[in-house]
């Protein structure tokens, strides 16, 4: 069966709520029913047929040909199957994903992967602020799965992360791992101010020494641990990076001592490796 394909006719003139266009929500709907679904959010909301040309039948394989920064809540609650967006998306893409895979070929807005609990979410371009983070009032952010940003991530990456892996492969903004509860955040490239700000537990893994560490993080030397090479292998097996990230003897900061202080920042020791 051919993938269910939504081809963008023209740039939408309102923000779209695409949370209803997922395998589970579309299963069993006819083409006419799908094209009548309301996706606009303004006073005169657009329906699917106004914005997209719909083709294909396989709801477990959904493709959006063309994207827009006005595509909000793409792939909300995805739990199986795959979705691919050939273009940009707006805010809250992949919110509460618990399985399957979501692939965004462009860039994504704020709260991408918000509260995701499983599955795989990959963004080829950049992501906005609060990657994986909770919305107002929610107690935890991402709780599982793998979230990969091939470009740069914004501020507050991994806000309230509780489990799972987030990778930002061309750097991130300020406060990576903000209020993190547990889990792992991988950053290649530059990190902004105060990574791990108010983190309770969990690991931040960097490919270089953090430039602006918080004063409430303490240098902890170079622990001799098996974890770094084990995790390097995991990252390469999952095709997240193609060469070891931390190396055998990473440096370590412990923190954030402003809260419980059980978190860590592990980073690759470039200078030492060169002198070896």
């Amino acid at each position, binding site marked *: 069966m051919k993938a269910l394909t939504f081809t963008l006719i023209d740039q939408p003139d309102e923000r779209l*709520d695409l949370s209803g266009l997922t395998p589970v929500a579309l299963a069993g709907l006819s083409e006419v029913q799908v094209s009548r679904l*309301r996706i606009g*959010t303004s*006073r005169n*909301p657009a329906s699917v047929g106004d914005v997209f040309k719909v083709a294909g039948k396989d709801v477990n394989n959904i493709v959006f040909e063309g994207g827009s920064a006005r595509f909000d809540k793409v792939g909300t609650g995805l739990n199986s199957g795959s979705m691919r967006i050939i273009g940009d998306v707006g805010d809250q893409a992949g919110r509460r994903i618990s399985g399957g895979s979501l692939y965004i070929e462009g860039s994504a807005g704020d709260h991408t992967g918000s509260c995701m609990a499983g599955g795989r979410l990959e963004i080829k371009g950049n992501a906005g602020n609060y990657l994986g983070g909770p919305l*107002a*009032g*929610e*107690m935890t952010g991402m709780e599982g799965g793998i979230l990969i940003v091939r470009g740069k991530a914004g501020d507050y990456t991994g806000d309230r992360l509780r489990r799972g892996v987030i990778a930002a492969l061309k750097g991130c903004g300020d406060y990576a791992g903000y209020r993190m509860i547990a889990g792992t955040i991988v950053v290649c490239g530059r990190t902004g101010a105060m990574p791990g700000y108010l983190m309770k537990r969990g690991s931040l893994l960097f490919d270089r020494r953090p430039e602006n560490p918080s004063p409430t993080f303490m240098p902890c030397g170079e622990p001799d641990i098996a974890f770094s090479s084990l995790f390097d292998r995991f990252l390469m097996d999952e095709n997240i990076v193609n060469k070891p990230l931390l190396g055998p003897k990473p440096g370590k900061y412990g923190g954030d001592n402003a809260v419980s202080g059980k978190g860590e920042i592990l980073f690759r020791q470039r200078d030492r490796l060169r002198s070896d």
Partner: protein
Amino acid sequence: MLIRLSGGEVIDPVNGKTSQRDVWIRDGVLIDIPEGETADQTHNVSGCIVMAGAIDIHSHIGGGNVNTARLLLPEYHAAHQPRPTNTPLSNAGWSTFRTGCLYAQMGFTTVVEPAMAPYTALHTHLELADIPIIDKATLAILGNDDFTLSLLRDGKSSAMIDDYVAWVVGSTRALGVKVINAGAAAAFKENVRSFSLDDVVPEYGVSSRKIVKSMQASVTRLGIPHPLHVHANNLGIAGSANTAAATIAATEGVPLHLAHLQFYGYGTEGKRKFSSEAARLAEAVNSNPDVTIDIGQVMFGQTVTISSDVMRQFAALGNASPKKTVIFDGDGNGGGGIVPYRYKQDYYGSIQWAVGLELFLLVTDPWRVFFTTDHPNGAPFTAYPELFELLMSSAARDAKCTELNASALELTTLASIRREYNLEEIAIMTRAAPAKLLGLKDRGHLGAGAIADVAVYRKGKDIAKMFREAALVFKNGDLVVKNGKVMHYRWGKTLRLNPPPDKAMAKRMNAYHEERYGLSLDWFTFPDSAIQRDEPFAEVSCNS
């Protein structure tokens, strides 16, 4: 405008036996059957029961605490929003707008917000004014404020205390006075963490009993129709039944209303030292005609507890679900806390649920027991229909009991109680008795001269459904609800007392606020210009 409701079964215990008769409304007021006139509007309500509009005497629907709960739980706003709608925020959870509509749909036409800290009067009344359809009222909180405690400490005359109480009630536009764990919030600030009726507030040297008795005497002397509304000490603690029994014994011939008695019905029996003492409390209530109570029934599910009992809320921090809370000090006068909570069908939840029902069923006089869940502390008021069903059907109770913790229910008398409320008792408990308790002579019954607050329910086997969706609801003669849907929006009024302020007290209050806060009294009182609507308030007269 002459309206006729024809053929309904009229349940109006105040004006005689239940019978099938017509009810006539002229210009918002109920009238006797007019001779030789034809109605402009006739509603055939055969197969329905007709009652006066219901009155809720204890439901936290507006004010500082409610708003803080909204701020604490923003995720519930999103959860209440199904899809984008045509007006912004119209679906935000627990809005004033929804409060009015949901109450009206169940046939409730008057609701009392029982806890307004005097310094939040402006906020509270602005919020109440924004609740559509129904009439509202508030009770002013006293007993933890520095001024009251100082008067008592300094042994000031009862006339002076009366002047102060009258000034507070008048300036905050309240319908009565409430004490909340009297003295405990003040003691809490001196690091006291448990406080009973005869404990003394540090620095002030007055006992909780002294505060309650002084306020009760003052309310009685001033002729405030609603007796002092008491939130007693030790709420929610195993063994609190002793405190409640002591408070009941302390009426000494003067009327007193005990709020949400369910939360005090706990003994210390059983393996977990948490059991039901409801039977004992019900007996104490039955044998003391000065006491009225409301229940504060617990129903299962997610809710949020909001209370000005800061000591209790502080003790409950560890039980918060989700794990976030607010505790605040109330600008030095009282305080409070917001603790979200999920009532589970476990041992403790089962005991609490059973204690409430035991009290409902064992207190024999429906004129002295009031229908509340202490919204939202025991359950949101949207659980009322299910609660009506539990009271009116022992089979429904038995069915629910099978889902609950058996060892908990064994420590209660619930299984042995077969009483079922009939519709007349429901009409007394939710209409006639609240009107009498609050001093509202113009409502709570269907006699000629009463305002035309009428609820019509379609009779059916499913009691919960019957009370959830009223067939017709009239508020002051306006048809506001039809088949459980709001048809017409109107503004209700806020009922208030207006005892004349003593000039010397007003002057003294001015000086007090200048000295303590460095601010003019105008910052704390309620300006007439705040609500831009014709006559947002309606005055209720004091007893003479």
